[in-house]
């Protein structure tokens, strides 16, 4: 068996997951992990799949594209060897939530992302909430993994100073506080 990562991107509509999963099943592929989201009218999904050794990447890509096309779906397929081990599982990290809040404009995400990159902080999830707090306002929520060897106080200060010229309100909070306040979990 080989472990492949298969990405799908294209116009959203009912039946995409049904077609893809049928195509995988027909080729004796076992789905190990999957994530799927919709942004506007766009569909995106990543499947991590165990694929029999006698099936090549090109063959599988062709079969999946053909079945999607025949069902009327406009979806691109990209297949590559799956990477091993999540980035954050290779080093001790702490999960933080960083938000920026203010007038929407160009350069906002890149400014914050550059600070994260400098501190070896990995963005695990990024979401924009447009219209929160008024017209042309944008709230960006970065869920990040911060390596434990990073100086949290310094990171926090740099995030704030990067956001100041853009007139953004920024917050940086350990993720556990959101879990504690809003979710009921077992011990």
């Amino acid at each position: 068996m080989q472990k492949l990562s298969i990405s799908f991107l294209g116009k959203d509509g009912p039946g995409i997951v049904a077609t893809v999963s049928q195509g995988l099943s027909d080729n004796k592929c076992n789905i190990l992990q999957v994530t799927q989201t919709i942004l506007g009218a766009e569909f995106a999904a990543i499947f991590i799949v165990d694929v029999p050794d006698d099936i090549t990447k090109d063959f599988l890509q062709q079969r999946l594209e053909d079945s999607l096309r025949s069902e009327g779906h406009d979806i691109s397929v990209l297949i590559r060897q799956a990477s091993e081990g999540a980035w954050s599982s290779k080093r001790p990290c702490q999960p933080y939530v960083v938000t920026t809040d203010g007038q929407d404009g160009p350069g906002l995400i890149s400014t914050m992302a550059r600070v994260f990159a400098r501190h070896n902080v990995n963005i695990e999830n990024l979401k924009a909430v447009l219209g929160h707090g008024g017209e042309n306002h944008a709230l960006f929520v970065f869920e990040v993994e911060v390596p434990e060897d990073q100086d949290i106080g310094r990171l926090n200060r740099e995030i704030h100073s990067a956001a100041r010229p853009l007139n953004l309100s920024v917050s940086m909070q350990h993720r556990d506080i959101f879990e504690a306040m809003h979710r009921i979990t077992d011990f």
Partner: protein
Amino acid sequence: MLSEREVISTLDMVRNEHLDVRTVTLGISLFDCVSHDVELFIGNVRAKINHYASNLVTTCNEIGEKYGIPVVNKRISVSPIAAVAAPFGPKDMVRICQALDEAAVEAKVDFIGGYSALVEKGFARGDTALIESIPEALASTQRVCSSINVASSKAGINMDAVALMGRQILATAAATADKGGFGCTKLVVFANIPQDVPFMAGAYLGIGEPDVVINVGVSGPGVVKKAIDRALEKGRQIGRPLNLLDVAEVIKKTAYKVTRVGEMIGNEVAARLGIPFGVADLSLAPTPAVGDSVGEIFQSCGLSVMGAPGSTAVLAMLNDAVKKGGSFASSSVGGLSGAFIPVSEDSSIEAAATSGFLSMEKLEALTSVCSVGLDMIAIPGDTPAAAISGIIADEMAIGMINHKTTAVRLIPVPGKGVGEKVSFGGLLGEATIIPVPRGDSSAFIGLGGRIPAPIHSLKN
């Protein structure tokens, strides 16, 4: 992955609704510091406080920064000084009080509580000395808080102590006359005082408590008010107006969230300091800031002003819902745990008192359903000691009969009368002096003795 709602709700609570941890209070037992020599005793006390409290403030700040939730106050509570310094006289007590003040400055905490005596059934030697020293002790210190327990449901009311505290409150006001009787803001008389209160001025470390312990006081009146407002608005928008059952549910859920924050931060402070975590006190503690008020919750519940008919019912519902939500959020609940109604510390309550909607009589009625009691109320400087004692006796009776904590923190403002203003600054706020009930209590107070403990059966 967090939902939008979870992130936005937390952000709003911190930025717009004054969500914070009101106090992390480090309790330190002083029983192992006792000595026959006052300087030796003070040396032991300073060393022990310094040993445990030196990292308190920086640890709280670091953890506050980690979670994005400020820990507004860091405080210390100690064993009742009347017990641990029992051999000493009033002059030595003052010296001990000053040493506690210095220890608070050194630890960078804003208050230290425990200049206290428990006299519900009678006075021991240390109790008499401590109570006698209070005016000078509180006038010569800034950060020390004093609490005297004069009644309990099991012992009754020590009316000699009630009479004495009426006189000592006046004497404390006189000793701090240049600051509007400021000393009285640090002096509170209790019935059924809990052993683990993290809030001032009543914080002290009871004798059944661990050697050192971290107790946390949560906050959140602003969060509760905004949650009610939002729920009412949403109900109107979807055509299903809320009733009081729904409002109680909103308060309960909000109290849950607020308590979870307090408990999480308290636990982490305790773990980092290597000290056991004690309790989360669920009290809704207001500040003078607009939007951080218990009084404004009454308006959200449909009353034009706190004090209007219906106020006691609203407070009863609020207090109970806070306890229910908080109890689910934490198994380590203690302290006072309810809604505070400190007049000068809450701009909305202060405005209601100034405009005459909240009288001393109505405040007393409110205290029968909430914690703590008649709190931070400015009264005329020429109020007779017997009248103050009478008010204390009434409040103690409510606590004693109802098996709850009640307290009195009155400030007779020297040289000022009804309608005049006094300002204490900071979290203590400002207040307009309100009248005390008329009539002469002096012969009653003069009887002294003890009101016996109530019968614990034949409930009705």
